């Protein structure tokens, strides 16, 4: 029972990584821009966050650094894709490749570094309830912030005018432009906010999830986050659910190993990636369902002059 509670706690932890990134990508895609550079942004943010964490010993500054790194890279991406109309997929890939190399490059100095001792988090009172306590209430504050963020985003998208405008831009930038909305500016903001959230996710990886720096430590979570937004049909609450699902699958490998399951470790490591494929297949089968929910302008270039 105890180890199951720990599994749940670990799931929340792992899910939070994906949640931040996927929510950021959701904002992106709602405006019609798909940013394949998530992995690269998260890597650069991870090293940025780690470096600041080591230097200042302050978690929140580390997250801020990660967010800034993500937003900056996203801005570069956004300028190319939105104002120069470069191919979104290729530019995103370029960002990922660049981010992979750049993070490894800066990170050389930090591979031996360690963050100062991690405090233990616990919500007083709630944390002592048997089972539920250790499962849910001994988390880093960011875990709860992620949940709040998902609901705030849902409110924003479906109950606020600004959210409606964002959805309209993603649905038909031409129509939004004809009505006078500054489509490109809105998209750039969306891309940068999305980048900042991916950055937070990256910093979370290197500061909370596995507090150290290793080259390539994001290990594909940026890509999984991309799959997650499709899986969740671009709805924030579903993103949260999916994030925890994936987090659970990721943690499953450790759980199984600790329970003494006799499977070669490599196959357990494969689990999250295979799960992503399965999930993609399941959700993509129904073309009509996707079409109704997907922001119609994703991936397509927008030319205001025409």
């Amino acid at each position: 029972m105890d180890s199951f509670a720990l599994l749940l706690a670990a799931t929340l932890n792992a899910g939070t990584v994906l949640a931040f990134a996927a929510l950021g990508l959701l904002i992106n895609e709602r405006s019609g821009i798909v940013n394949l550079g998530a992995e690269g942004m998260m890597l650069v943010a991870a090293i940025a966050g780690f470096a600041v964490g080591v230097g200042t010993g302050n978690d929140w500054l580390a997250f801020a650094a990660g967010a800034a790194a993500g937003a900056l890279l996203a801005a570069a991406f956004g300028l190319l894709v939105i104002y120069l109309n470069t191919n979104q997929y290729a530019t995103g890939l370029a960002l990922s490749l660049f981010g992979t190399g750049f993070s490894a490059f800066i990170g050389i100095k930090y591979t031996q570094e360690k963050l100062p001792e991690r405090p233990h988090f616990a919500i007083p009172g709630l944390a002592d309830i048997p089972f539920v306590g250790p499962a849910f209430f001994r988390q880093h504050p960011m875990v709860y912030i992620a949940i709040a963020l998902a609901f705030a985003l849902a409110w924003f998208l479906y109950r606020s005018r600004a959210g409606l405008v964002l959805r309209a831009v993603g649905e038909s930038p031409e129509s939004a432009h004809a009505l006078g909305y500054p489509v490109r500016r809105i998209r750039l903001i969306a891309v940068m906010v999305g980048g900042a959230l991916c950055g937070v996710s990256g910093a979370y990886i290197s500061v909370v999830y596995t507090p150290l720096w290793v080259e390539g430590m994001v290990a594909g979570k940026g890509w999984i986050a991309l799959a997650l937004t499709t899986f969740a049909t671009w709805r924030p609450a579903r993103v949260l659910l999916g994030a925890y699902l994936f987090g659970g699958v990721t943690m499953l490998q450790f759980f199984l190993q600790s329970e003494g399951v006799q499977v070669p470790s490599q196959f357990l490591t494969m689990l999250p990636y295979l799960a992503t494929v399965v999930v993609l297949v399941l959700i993509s089968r129904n073309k009509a369902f996707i079409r109704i929910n997907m922001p119609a302008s994703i991936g397509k270039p927008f030319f205001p002059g025409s």
Partner: protein
Amino acid sequence: MLKLEARPEQSRLMSIGSPILALAITVVIGTILFVLLGKDPVRGLYIFFVEPLKSVYALTELAVKSVPLMLIALGLAVCFRSNVWNIGAEGQYILGAIFASGVAMTADKSTGGWIVVLVLFAAIVGGMLWAAIVALLRDRFNANEILVSLMLVYVAEQLLSYMVYGPWKDPAGYNFPQTITFLKSTQMPKLFTGFRVNAGVIVALLAVGAFWVLLFRTYAGFQLQVGGLAPAAARYAGFSSRKALWTALLLSGGMAGLAGGLEIAGPLGQLTPYVPAGYGFAAIIVAYVGRLHPVGIVFSSILMSMFYIGGELAQSRLGLPKSLTGVFQGLLLFALLACDTLIFYRIRWQAARAPAAKPVSAISTETKVA
């Protein structure tokens, strides 16, 4: 202020000039980077762009590195032209290497040199199989090929790790995760003694020719391109998008697998966890910088090899981290994408516009809504 103005038609000059301009921008940024790292920029640039060309040995090393890049990029060019986004070439490369090794391990002292053909054939099959999974899932279930092919890269890496740590580990290998060193009979014949470059170069150049013919002189190639440029036109013409999907993926998977096999039957000579060298991803950049054109790809693969070798030399001579190569490669693609806009747009300097007449604010104070 600067303004982008659409050109009435594509600029041919910029089509060729854009990669060169992008390279120039990368060099400039690289110089800045070197200075920031406290290294002599001139020496840095020399190491990256001149050293790899200085000696015959250096040139052959360039050829060695460019073979896999060229092969994979040719397949990717077909893919991208068809609007099929195979990002998982790295995984198909790994599977090619695994299958090639499987065959190579069956060779014993009596096997003749013909086994190389089998080794390469197995490599192609391995790559194709891995790509076929992507094709099937996209064809049947409409699953996005970018994410599926990428996930399969991670799976392939784990598969490789399992094989070399487990069933294929060389019992006489001091417990290192690696297979036996394959016999000479399984290796591609070298072109010149004393250098690593082998007949793979010939294979690559033949492939360049074959792909050029495919893309520009066959109806099949035409169909693939139309499918990528205007899917509605392809449907109107009656071109099968399913056929295009499978062709593109199997072709690129096979090429990536072949590249993996040539590494096994060549410079690597055995299967280790270090087989994935990132060629599958670098090839994406090679394909783009080469304008998705077989001839362009020859040049861009040589350029990319220079980055690789330059990175290695910079590490040993200047003490710079090898990841610098990755930074340059990423920068090059970024710069290329930005410069490509110049093919379609002109930069104009436009003076801040004077208003048409006495500017009266257009916002009236009585905004009414029904």
